[in-house]
């Protein structure tokens, strides 16, 4: 049981960074200013690198002879375990950077705790990823503040992005059997344990950004369990997996 749960947990970590990294990479060549284009690519590169580590370990734990690439390119929608938040489309730059910040705020907290994981392999990946995530959250947080507290237009766009994405936040903190097994084995923290520190960080930034937290609505879920992804993920995979699917068995 624990092996299966561990595999699921590693897929969650790796699929989050895979799908978000993919989304961020869509900006390459299209960002509002060159400096931002380069910075977004750095974020995407970090996330792809983390994906290789998480999915590599997942494949090892699974022990079926699959590779990180097999997991990334040859699973269908229902086998993905990422949060619904990260598969949401880029929208405008405001929606992209807000999605990034909400994820980063959770990601640093999660990684920080994973550096104490009872599984040394997980602790090692987390230690490397944490350094990257700390920079990501600082950059995305400052950009959210700058745009929220910028012009009337930038403020309105950021508020709209927040209203759009807010219902996806709750999924991060809803624990299930996988989370319980991980907590019991001291591999990862309980999902709920991250709620307070993550919320605190998010609220502090939104406050400086002069953005109002939307009224609580029904929290969307179904991504990390794989039970019900959004329609967006299938289109993303169609593109991402095209070559591997069209030319099975080829090496690239």
């Amino acid at each position, binding site marked *: 049981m624990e092996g299966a749960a561990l595999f699921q947990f590693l897929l969650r970590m790796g699929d989050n960074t895979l799908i978000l990294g993919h989304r961020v990479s869509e900006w390459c060549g*299209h960002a509002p200013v060159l400096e931002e284009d380069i910075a977004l690519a750095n974020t995407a590169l970090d996330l*792809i690198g983390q994906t290789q580590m998480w999915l590599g370990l997942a494949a090892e734990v699974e022990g079926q002879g699959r590779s990180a690439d097999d997991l990334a*390119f040859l699973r269908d929608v229902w086998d993905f375990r990422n949060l619904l938040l990260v598969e949401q489309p880029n929208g405008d*730059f405001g929606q992209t950077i807000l999605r990034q910040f909400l994820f980063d705020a959770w990601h640093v907290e999660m990684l920080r705790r994973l550096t104490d994981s009872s599984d040394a392999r997980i602790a090692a990946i987390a230690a490397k990823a944490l350094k990257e995530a700390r920079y990501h959250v600082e950059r995305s947080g400052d950009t959210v503040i700058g745009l929220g*507290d910028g012009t009337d237009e930038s403020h309105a766009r950021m508020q709209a992005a927040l209203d759009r994405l807010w219902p996806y936040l709750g999924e991060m903190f809803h624990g299930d059997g996988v989370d319980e097994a991980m907590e019991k084995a001291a591999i990862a923290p309980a999902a709920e344990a991250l709620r307070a520190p993550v919320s605190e960080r998010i609220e502090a930034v939104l406050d400086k950004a002069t953005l109002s937290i939307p009224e609580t609505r029904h929290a969307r879920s179904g991504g990390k369990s794989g039970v019900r992804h959004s329609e967006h993920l299938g289109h993303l995979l169609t593109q991402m997996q095209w070559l591997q699917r069209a030319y099975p068995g080829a090496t690239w």
Partner: protein
Amino acid sequence: MYAQMVQSTGKGVKTRAEMTEEEARFQDRIDAGEKIEPRDWMPEGYRKTLIRQIGQHAHSEIVGQLPEGNWITRAPTLERKAILLAKVQDEAGHGLYLYCAAETLGVSRDELTQDLLSGRMKYSSIFNYPTLTWADMGAVGWLVDGAAIMNQVPLQRTSYGPYSRAMIRICKEESFHQRQGYDIMMKMAKGTPEQKRMAQDALNRFWYPSLMMFGPSDADSVHSAQSMAWKIKINTNDELRQKFVDQTVPQAELLGLTIPDPELKWNEARGHHDFSQPDWSEFFAVIQGDGPCNSERMEARRKAWDDGAWVREGLMAHAAKKAARKVAAE
């Protein structure tokens, strides 16, 4: 190359007798291999030609992100995705360095961008060709970057300090670009029959557009003569094109691919390969805006600029508010 057909403002190279005292002193410094720095005296023609050339080069890097960016989300493995993204990101960086070099000549990046978007300034013809298969990522790295490097390496010695320093940095970073392209080609050429077909098809489509990158023959061009006297152009277009062909032929053989030119053969007497010229009427059509992807490329750049306006303005407004709050607190 990335700056094809840059018009210089002069009417040919002035003789010593025609030069003013300042111009003669300037030419002496260049002949002595000295670098010209932003605050130094320079002829207006030198300044204007440089702005056009560096600007065109910068625009080429930025538009050049698009054909390869077209495949980032479809890269076949995680490692290929990371490599391609890092490479396209480098191109953004190179555009940035070059815009900064141009800015030392008294023009702003926004002004240059406006000139690109309005069509007043050009970018390399090569980026108006589509990337249709994954093998095109190999061909672009191998051929397009190969051609670019051939032009950029000598430009490290160009007379204008900021341009030279930008080129040194660019060449250092770009050394992996061509290799990653060739690496993709090797995998494809030695892969499945479909992969091999893709590789040959990519070479077929990118061969002549790559030869066009060096620009038409400039043997008799007065613009080129002046630029060479000022050391902002180091080799003639034909020299570089020949060098490129000579370098590429054995690389294609190693891949087991055929260069799509029946006239291509080694000329013992010249010590070079003879080869067919590209269709120059196609080149001029592409430069004038009638290439396969000109509209798409410009639409993408305009959209990025227009959609980004609120972001640039928003962050600037926040910076101003922050500065004002700081002053108020002091």
